[in-house]
């Protein structure tokens, strides 16, 4: 069982993840050529300027207005992206599958980062229920997506701590990771790919076209 999920299933997941994003990107780029404003008004310099103001916390007014939310959100996203990439156990898999090694983070630090993701996910879940505006615009899919996003972290942590005997947790971890990868291109988690583009476009609109700041 473990051999299957960590073998062919993972390859399928990566194929859907990368293929899905690539397909999305190519078709969207083709469609963007038909827009009068997207490509002709795009400016790398102003796009980058805007991105820097938004990927660094407290460099824009909205993140300054809500410092606690900002710290949680940045911590969540940073750990969510960095932990699976640089985890020592994953590095062994990267090497076996692709022959490359990324820098590794020590396991105790990875544990802390995993806990940050899980707690962050819990925060976002509760925030969807508690903040009236967010509740007003959330549907069931938004709640499920939070669970999908933190699923691999919960199972990974539990598995690492060997909370259950045998392969069960490890298999659950791989399956939840597979689900996570496969839904990215087809759900709102695709914001992971679009973020730099929407931000850079607005940065260009404000900076290059309108000579103004968007942070």
């Amino acid at each position, binding site marked *: 069982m473990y051999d299957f999920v960590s073998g062919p299933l993972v390859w399928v997941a990566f194929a859907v993840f990368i293929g899905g994003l690539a397909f999305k990107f190519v078709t969207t780029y083709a*469609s963007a050529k038909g827009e009068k404003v*997207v490509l002709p008004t795009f400016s790398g310099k102003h796009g980058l300027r805007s991105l820097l103001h938004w990927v660094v916390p407290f460099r824009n007014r*909205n993140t300054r207005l809500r410092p606690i939310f900002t710290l949680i959100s940045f911590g969540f996203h940073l750990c969510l992206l960095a932990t699976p990439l640089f985890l020592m156990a994953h590095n062994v898999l990267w090497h076996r599958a692709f022959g490359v090694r990324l820098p590794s983070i020590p396991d105790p630090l990875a544990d802390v980062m995993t806990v940050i993701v899980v707690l962050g996910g819990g925060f976002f879940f509760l925030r969807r229920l508690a903040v*009236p*505006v967010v509740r007003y615009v959330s549907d069931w899919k*938004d709640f499920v997506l939070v669970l999908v996003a933190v699923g691999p972290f919960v199972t990974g942590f539990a598995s690492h701590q060997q909370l259950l005997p045998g392969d069960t947790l490890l298999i659950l971890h791989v399956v939840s990771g597979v689900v996570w990868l496969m839904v990215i291109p087809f759900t709102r988690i695709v914001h992971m790919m679009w973020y730099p583009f929407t931000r850079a476009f607005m940065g260009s609109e404000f900076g290059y076209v309108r000579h103004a700041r968007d942070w």
Partner: protein
Amino acid sequence: MQVPDVPKEIPRIEDPGIDRRLEEIDLEEVERVIVETLDKETAARLKVYLETCVHCGLCSEGCHYFLSHDKDPRYAPVSKVKQTLWEMARRKGKVDKTFLRNAVRIAYLECGACRRCSMYCPFGIDIAYLTMVVRRIFHKLKLVPQYLQDTVNSHAVTMNQMWVQQDEWIDTLQWQEEETRDEYPAARIPLEKEGAEIMYSVIGPEPKILAQLLGNISLIMTAAGYDWTMPATDGWDNSNMAMYSGDFEIMARVEKLHWETAQRLRVKRVVMGECGHAFRGAVYDGPRWLGWTEPPIPMVHAIEFYYELLKEGRIKIREKYKKPITVQDPCNTVRGRGLGDKLRYVMNALCEDFRDVSPNQEHNYCCGAGGGLINCGANWKKIRMWGNRVKAEQLDATGAEIVCTPCHNCHSGIEDIIGHYKLGMHVKFISEILVEVMERP
């Protein structure tokens, strides 16, 4: 400042453009128009925006309606998209009349397309663009507030916003030239001067109800020694309410004629009066619809023009304006053109006691009148007033007596707010202050 009560539920406001049209509207046509607009008139931008929005609600801080309605979730920018475009897309155009009535009010009255929320969305989603897509659909369905539609009709027939006829236009210019010459005999309003350096263009309300502003510019231009002219033909009006009703065909006709008029006069640049939406239409929305990346001749907004003539010392200040004064950063020229610093230079150059607003510059609150809102008519005024308490509080906090509003919509909108919240302030254009304090050679 006094804050009148706001009803919990929005009362139904009568508007023949909406009520009568809804009685006869065919829901199959609605479905067809929605699907057609979403499929054929939008592309990657809309799709990516709809996919990317994670429903986080962070845009809410950007909206003066949301803040003024004590953070009522219905008024957050994302909620307005939910109540309009999301539903249209999700139901594939199969919407009912109750939905339409609510969505029309939201698109035309509860969002001024001021773009402040885009500065609060972490993804920089252009929510104002989403509003404009909804308005486009409503225009195609002929479901537009009556007063706004009448203004668009005026554009279509007379090529200006206020049904001004050509003889009235010329007559008004000559009348204002004469008035100005009473106290300053050198003043002129040169008409149809080919090859002049500057063509000066204004919006329809100037000849119609604020003619003294034409006299002011005659005085300023003459005193500053500019070689300028105004057209005697259609094409003098740079305003564009069709841009806000969603009638982009008429919008493009108006802008095209405006630029063709400037080209016919072979001027080096167009300087325009104190209006924000007109700048947006002439420099961004019009050219884009026409397939131009920018206008054929540079356009200089009044704020930048006054900055230039004060900085270059073309006009000297006799004595600075004394009363405590604050300013309204117009969305379309400050958030839309980055003229905030130049506006402050002008304010400090003209006034002794300038008191800035907070938040200011790009983060300033919209006046609540632009974006076609005030043009929807007096029957809708309360929606604008209830939705802009934060503006009243912001102005009140400055302790100023005068609000300088370098934009016609801001001017009228702030005047309404001052009256509604009993702020005891007055509004003035830059040109009104300038002619009061300038040295007359």
